[in-house]
C-alpha cells in the first residue's frame, strides 16, 4: 500500500526503479486525505491520543496516530479493516455496540464524529503517504569508486605476498613465510629483529596465549631442559590439544558474539539457556571445527543438513549467536521490537564476520562505506523472515512471566547435559493440572458477562475477575509443567518464519514508515562470485551463510586471520578489529594479512593450524628487548621487531590466581546458575541477582564459565576491562585504574587465593624458606628469584612475622601463615604477575 516503487533485481546490486504511474497521487486520493485531515485526525487527537499514541502508553497495544497501528491493531487484533467499517473493531468501540469494548470510556463521540470515522474507513482509510527521500535507490558514483578501490573489498591476492616473501628467500633468520613477510618490512625500515626470547619467557607467553593459564613449574623445566629440535612444537601441540585452549579461544569468540545471559536494557530478563551456546563455541574450538562451517552454523545451523540428532541439536544451538544480544522487551510496538532486534542482528553479523558497520544504513545510505539503505533492508528481509527465538515477546510494563514465550524457543531432541531428569510422576501431575485448569475455565465461562459474574466479591472486585485470576493461575501451573524450557531441552536461536519474504525500506529507520520493498540479498560492497540468489521459499539465511563463508568472500577470512593475529601479538594487522571500512585503519602489512587469510582457507579453515603456524614462526618467538634506535623508528612495534608485552585479560588474571593456589577447578559446569532463573525481570539488588553473584564468588571454575548476566559482571572480570556485552568486541580496553589496585589489595577473592598459595607452599615437607620463596616465584612468575629478590623476600617475611607476633591476632592463622599469605598476595598483585612478554 505504501509501495511507491516497484523494484527489479539486477545482478548483484540493487536498483530501485520508480514506477511511472505511482509518482503522482490521484486527485481522488487527495480528497480522501483532505477528509481525513479535516474530519478524522482531529477526532483521534482530541478523544483518543491520550491513551493510544506513540506519546502515551498505547493502552491495549493500540495506537491511533499511525495507520499501521490501526490496521495491525492492538491486543484484540486489527482496529480497522480499510473498506469494511462493519468488520472494524474501532467502529464497534465508538458505537459502543459490543458488550465490553466501549471507547472513549468516559464519554461518547457525537453521531457526526462516528459517521465521519465510518465514512473514512469505508473509503479505504486514507492516510498521508510517507515521503520517500529521493536519494533512496539512486546510484552513488562514489560508492562505485570505493567498491573498486578500497583495499578490504578487493579479492585476496595470491601473488603479491609471494613476490614480497621471495625478496627474503635467502634470509637465514626466517623460518616461515610469515617471517619473510615481516622481515621484508623491517628491512625496508632498516631495522633488525631483536634476539629470540629465552625459553622460560617463551613458554609462559605461549601457554597464556593458547590456554589463558600459566605453565606449571614442571612444564617450564621440561621445556627449558628439552634439547630436541621439536621441543617447542611439542609444547604447542600439547597446548592446542588441551580443552584449556578451547576455553581461552572460545572466550575470544564470545567477545565477538557479545555473549550475555540476559537481555540487559530497560528490563533485564535472563536467558536461561544461553550457556548452551557458550558450550557450543568451546566445543567447536576444541574440535577445530573449520571456520567456514562455524560461520554457517551460527547463521543457518537450522537449515543445514545434519547426520545425527546430536549434530542437529548443536546446529540449532549455534544459531543462538543471532539472538543473544541486548533486547528491549519493554518496547510497546511489536514492529519496533522486530526491527530493533533485526538491527542488532545485522550489526552483529556484519561486524563479527565482515568487520563492517552496516547498521549505519538503517536510517540513511552509509556516509563512508558503500552500503546503501537498500542493502541494509535486503539483509533485513532475511532476518524478518526468521523467528527470533529468545523465549521472549515484547510488552510494555509487563510483570512476572508476561515476557516469557516458550513457543519462541527451539526444541532439542537429543541433549542430556543440563536436562532435568524426567519426574516419574510428571504425567500424573500434568493430568491433574490440566483438570484443574479445565475446571477453573469452566467456572469462569459460566459466569463471564452474566449477572453472576458482575456481582461484587467481598473485596469489591467483580466475581468474574476473581474467576479469571484463578483460571490464569491454573493455566500458569499447567504451562510450567508442560514447558520444555523448564526441563532444559531447548535452545535460543532462530528458525524460518511461517511467512518468508522481502521487506520494505523504513524511511529514516522508523519501523512504521514503509518505503519501497527490496529483494532480499547481501551487501553490494563486495562481489562474491558463485553464490546463488536467495531461495524464495526460505528466509535466505542459508544463502547468507554461504555468501559469508565462501572462499571468494574477501572479508571473512581476512577478518578472522586478523583476529587470530591480534590474540597472539596484542594488536591486529588491521588495528581496528571490527572495522575494515573506509574509516578503519589500514593493514600495517597487507601481504601478510592476505597470506594468513589464504593459509587459513588452504588448511581447510583450520583455526588451530593457523595458530600453530604463527606461534612456530620466529616472529612470534622474538624477545621483548627494546633498543632505543628501534623505538625511535617504530615505537608501537607495528612492524614486529620484538614481541610486545601484554597485560593478561581479566579471565587470565583470575584463572592464574586460582591455578597457582591449586584451587582451579578445571571441570566444565553443568549449565549455568542462570539456567535456574525464571524468565522474570531481574533487579540488581534482588534475590536472584544476589544468588547469581554468590555463585560467581563461590565458583573456582575457569572464568569463561562464570554466569554473565548483563549488568552483573563478576567483580574479578569487571575490574580488568571485561568485554562490553552490548556489542561485538574485537579488542578489549586495557585501562590502569586505582580500583584494580584496591581489588588486588583488599578483595576477599585475592586474599583467599593468596592464603591458599601460602598454605600450599608451607605444606612442602622439610623445605627451607629460600626453597619456598623460589617455588613461589616459579609458580607465580614462571622464573627464579634473583639474589636481591631473595634477600628482600626473606627480610619481608621475617619482619612481618615478628611484627605479627607482637600484634593481637586478628585471624585464626598463626603469624607464619599470615606472613606468607601477605607475601604471596604481593606476588599476585605485582605487575609482573599480570603481564606476559
Amino acid at each position, binding site marked *: 500500500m505504501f509501495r511507491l516503487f516497484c523494484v527489479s533485481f539486477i545482478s548483484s546490486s540493487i536498483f530501485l526503479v520508480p514506477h511511472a504511474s505511482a509518482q503522482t497521487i490521484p486527485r481522488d486520493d487527495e480528497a480522501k486525505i483532505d477528509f481525513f485531515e479535516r474530519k478524522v485526525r482531529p477526532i483521534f487527537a482530541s478523544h483518543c491520543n*491520550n491513551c493510544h499514541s506513540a506519546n502515551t502508553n498505547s493502552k491495549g497495544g493500540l495506537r491511533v496516530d499511525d495507520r499501521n497501528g490501526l490496521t495491525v491493531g492492538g491486543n484484540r487484533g486489527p482496529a480497522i479493516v480499510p473498506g469494511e467499517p462493519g468488520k472494524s473493531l474501532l467502529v464497534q468501540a465508538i458505537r459502543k455496540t459490543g458488550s465490553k469494548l466501549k471507547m472513549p470510556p468516559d464519554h461518547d463521540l457525537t453521531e457526526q464524529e462516528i459517521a465521519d470515522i465510518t465514512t473514512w474507513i469505508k473509503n479505504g482509510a486514507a492516510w498521508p503517504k510517507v515521503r520517500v527521500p529521493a536519494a533512496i535507490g539512486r546510484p552513488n558514483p562514489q560508492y562505485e569508486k570505493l567498491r573498486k578501490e578500497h583495499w578490504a573489498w578487493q579479492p585476496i591476492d595470491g601473488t603479491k605476498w609471494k613476490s614480497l616473501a621471495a625478496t627474503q628467500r635467502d634470509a637465514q633468520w626466517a623460518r616461515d613465510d610469515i617471517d619473510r613477510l615481516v622481515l621484508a618490512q623491517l628491512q625496508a625500515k632498516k631495522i633488525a629483529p631483536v634476539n629470540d626470547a629465552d625459553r622460560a619467557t617463551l613458554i609462559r607467553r605461549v601457554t597464556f596465549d593458547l590456554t589463558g593459564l600459566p605453565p606449571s613449574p614442571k612444564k617450564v623445566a621440561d621445556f627449558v631442559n628439552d634439547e630436541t629440535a621439536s621441543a617447542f612444537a611439542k609444547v604447542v601441540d600439547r597446548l592446542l590439544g588441551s580443552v584449556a585452549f578451547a576455553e581461552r579461544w572460545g572466550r575470544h569468540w564470545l567477545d565477538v558474539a557479545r555473549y550475555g545471559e540476559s537481555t540487559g536494557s530497560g528490563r533485564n530478563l535472563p536467558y536461561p539457556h544461553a550457556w548452551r551456546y557458550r558450550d557450543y563455541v568451546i566445543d567447536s574450538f576444541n574440535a577445530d571445527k573449520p571456520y567456514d562451517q562455524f560461520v554457517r552454523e551460527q547463521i543457518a545451523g537450522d537449515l543445514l543438513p545434519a547426520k545425527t540428532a546430536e549434530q542437529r541439536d548443536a546446529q540449532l544451538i549455534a544459531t543462538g549467536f543471532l539472538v543473544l544480544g541486548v533486547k528491549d522487551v519493554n518496547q510497546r510496538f511489536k514492529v519496533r521490537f522486530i526491527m530493533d532486534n533485526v538491527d542488532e542482528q545485522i550489526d552483529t553479523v556484519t561486524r563479527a564476520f565482515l568487520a563492517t558497520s552496516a547498521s549505519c544504513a538503517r536510517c540513511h545510505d552509509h556516509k563512508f562505506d558503500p552500503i546503501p539503505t537498500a542493502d541494509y533492508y535486503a539483509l533485513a528481509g532475511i532476518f524478518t523472515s526468521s523467528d527470533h527465538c529468545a523465549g521472549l515477546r515484547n510488552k510494555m510494563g509487563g510483570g512476572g512471566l508476561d515476557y516469557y514465550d516458550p513457543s519462541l524457543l527451539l526444541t532439542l531432541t537429543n541433549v542430556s547435559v543440563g536436562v532435568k531428569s524426567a519426574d516419574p510422576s510428571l504425567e500424573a501431575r500434568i493430568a491433574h493440572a490440566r483438570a484443574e485448569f479445565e475446571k477453573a475455565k469452566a467456572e469462569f465461562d459460566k459466569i463471564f458477562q452474566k449477572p453472576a459474574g458482575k456481582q461484587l466479591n467481598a473485596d469489591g472486585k467483580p466475581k468474574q475477575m476473581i474467576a479469571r485470576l484463578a483460571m490464569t493461575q491454573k493455566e500458569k501451573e499447567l504451562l510450567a509443567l508442560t514447558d520444555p524450557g523448564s526441563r532444559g531441552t531447548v535452545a535460543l536461536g532462530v528458525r524460518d518464519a511461517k511467512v518468508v519474504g522481502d521487506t520494505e525500506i523504513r524511511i529514516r529507520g522508523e519501523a512504521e514508515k514503509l518505503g519501497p520493498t527490496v529483494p532480499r540479498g547481501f551487501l553490494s560492497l563486495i562481489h562474491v562470485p558463485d553464490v546463488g540468489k536467495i531461495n524464495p521459499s526460505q528466509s535466505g539465511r542459508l544463502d547468507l551463510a554461504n555468501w559469508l563463508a565462501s572462499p571468494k568472500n574477501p572479508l571473512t577470512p581476512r577478518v578472522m586471520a586478523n583476529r587470530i593475529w591480534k590474540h597472539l601479538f596484542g594488536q591486529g594487522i588491521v588495528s581496528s578489529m571490527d572495522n575494515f571500512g573506509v574509516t578503519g585503519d589500514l593493514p600495517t602489512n597487507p601481504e601478510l594479512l592476505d597470506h594468513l587469510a589464504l593459509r587459513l582457507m588452504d588448511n581447510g579453515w583450520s583455526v588451530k593450524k593457523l595458530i600453530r603456524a604463527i606461534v612456530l614462526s620466529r616472529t612470534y618467538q622474538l*624477545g621483548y628487548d627494546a633498543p632505543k634506535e628501534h623505538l625511535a623508528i617504530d615505537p608501537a612495534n607495528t612492524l614486529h621487531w620484538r614481541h610486545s*608485552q601484554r597485560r593478561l585479560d581479566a579471565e587470565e588474571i583470575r584463572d592464574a590466581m586460582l591455578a597457582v593456589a591449586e584451587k582451579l577447578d578445571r571441570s566444565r559446569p553443568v549449565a549455568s546458575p542462570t539456567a535456574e532463573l525464571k524468565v522474570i525481570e531481574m533487579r540488581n539488588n534482588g534475590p536472584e*541477582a544476589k544468588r547469581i553473584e554468590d555463585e560467581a564468588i563461590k565458583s573456582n571454575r575457569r572464568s569463561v564459565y562464570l554466569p554473565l548476566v548483563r549488568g552483573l559482571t563478576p567483580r574479578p572480570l569487571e575490574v580488568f576491562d571485561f568485554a562490553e556485552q552490548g556489542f561485538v568486541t574485537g579488542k578489549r580496553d586495557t585501562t590502569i*585504574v586505582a580500583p584494580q589496585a584496591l581489588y588486588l*589489595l583488599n578483595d576477599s577473592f585475592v586474599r583467599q587465593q593468596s592464603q591458599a598459595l601460602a598454605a600450599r607452599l608451607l605444606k612442602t615437607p622439610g623445605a627451607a624458606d629460600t626453597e619456598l620463596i623460589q617455588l613461589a616465584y616459579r609458580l607465580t612468575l614462571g622464573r627464579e628469584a634473583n639474589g636481591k629478590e631473595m634477600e*628482600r623476600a626473606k627480610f619481608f617475611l621475617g619482619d612481618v612475622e615478628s611484627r605479627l607476633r607482637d600484634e593481637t591476632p586478628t585471624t585464626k592463622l598463626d603469624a607464619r601463615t599470615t606472613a606468607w599469605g601477605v607475601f604471596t598476595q604481593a606476588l599476585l598483585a605485582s*605487575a*609482573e604477575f599480570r*603481564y606476559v612478554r
Partner: protein
Amino acid sequence: MFSSMSPLSRRQWLRTTAAGFGQVALAGMLAAQERRTTRDPQNPLAPRESHFPVKAKRIIFCFMEGAMSQLDTMEHKPTLQRSNLRTGPGGGVLTASKFRFAQHGQTGTWMSNLLPNMSRHVDKFCWLRGLHTDTPAHPQAVIQLHTGVANASLVRPSIGAWLLYGLGTENQDLPGYITVNPSPNFGGATNYGSAFLPAHYQGTRINDAGQMANLRSPISNSLQRRQLDLIQGMNRDFAGQPGASEQVDGVIQSFELAFRMQDRVPALLDISREPQAVQDMYGVRPGPQGSFARQCLMARRLSEAGVRFVEITQSGWDHHSNLHQGLINQTSMVDRPVAALLTDLERRGLLDDTLVLFGSEFGRMPTQQGPDGRDHNITGYPMILAGAGVKAGYSYGATDEVGTHAVEGRMHMTDLHATLLALMGLDHEQLTYRYGGRDFRLTDVAGRVVTEIIDS
C-alpha cells in the same frame, strides 16, 4: 576523534605519568587551571581544555526516578484547577491537584505546599518547563535520560562518562563520576556505564550508606603499607627492565593512589563527620526515610572535593495510584534535603561553580488514572536547574493550560544534554568518539543548546 591511543616515547611518558583516577607525583604541577588539548593516553583523566568558557565545573543531579507529578508540586495550572472532572483535550478526565499552591520569592513562583523548603529557594531556580522525551515507559526513558538513546536496545555511554571523557577530572585522587544509590533496574549499570568509551570513564557506584567496593583493608594499615612497599619494589624492578611496558609505571601510580583512596574516600563519605547542625539541616537519619538526606550531604562533600558528576537518586514516584499519600511521603523525604543542599552549597560558595539538576525521566498527566493516580506524560514536563551558569529566577518554556503538551520553549531530552554539556564547556557536536567506524555523540545527530537559559 580519540579512539586509538598512540604510543608515547618513554621520556614523554615519564614526564606525564599517572594512572586511573589520577596523577600522583605531579599532582601539584597539574593544577586545575592547567588544561591540555591533546589527550595523554596514559593519563586520560587529566583536566582538559574545554571547547567553550566553563560556566559550571561540576554537576549534582538529583534524580527523581519514577516521574514525580509536576502538577501537584511545581506546575501551577489554574485552568486545570478549575476544570476538575471535565474531559481534557486528547481524552481522559482532568483532575485538579489536591494540594494548595502559593507564590514564593521575589519571582512569585508558584509551588505547592508539598515542597515548603524548596519553595524558599525559588529565586535561584532556572526552570525548564517545556521538556519532552520519546518513550512513556520508565526503562527506556531512564536510559534515554542517562545515555541519550531512544532505542534502549543500544548500549551507549552515560552523560557522566562523556563529561569525564571531555573534561577529565579536577581531583585526581577521587573518582570523577560517582552515582549514589542508582536504580537497580531500568537499565541498571547502563545508566552509569561507559559503553564503548574506555572503562576509566564509567561511573563509580556507592550505596546510600556511603560504601564503595574494596576500600577496606583486611589487614592492619601498617602491615599493608609494608606489603605495598614490597609490591612497589617488585614493580619498580619490573619497570626498570629493558623493554618493559610503559604501562607498568601506571600500575605503580595506581597502587599509591589506591592506598591513599582507602584513607581518604571513606572519610569523605562519612557524613557523621559533619557538625550536628548541618546533619540536622539536611534531615539526616538512618533507614530508607533518611536515604535521600544522606545522599544530598554526600553529594555536597563529593562536589566540594571536586567530583565532576555526582548523581543521587530517590525512587518511588510512579504514582499510578495512591498519588495523594504517595506524594506526601515522597516529598517529605526530598524537600528538606534538597533545600539544605542548596543552602549549604551557597554558603560555601560552591553554587558559583556547581550546577544542580533536579527532576525525573518524564512527568505525569493532568488527567486521572483510576481513583487516585496519574499516568505518564512525555509531551510536556519540567526540570529545575540551579547554580553555576544558569539564570536565577528564570523560567524557560511552558506547557498548555492544563499541562499536557509543551507549547513554548520546547526542549527535547537531547537539547537538555546539549545544554548541560555547553554549561560544562563542551560543544556537543565536537565531543565525539570514534567507535566501529563512526563518530558517536551523546546527542547523536540532534540537540540544540538552549542559550536562553545561560547566564552570560
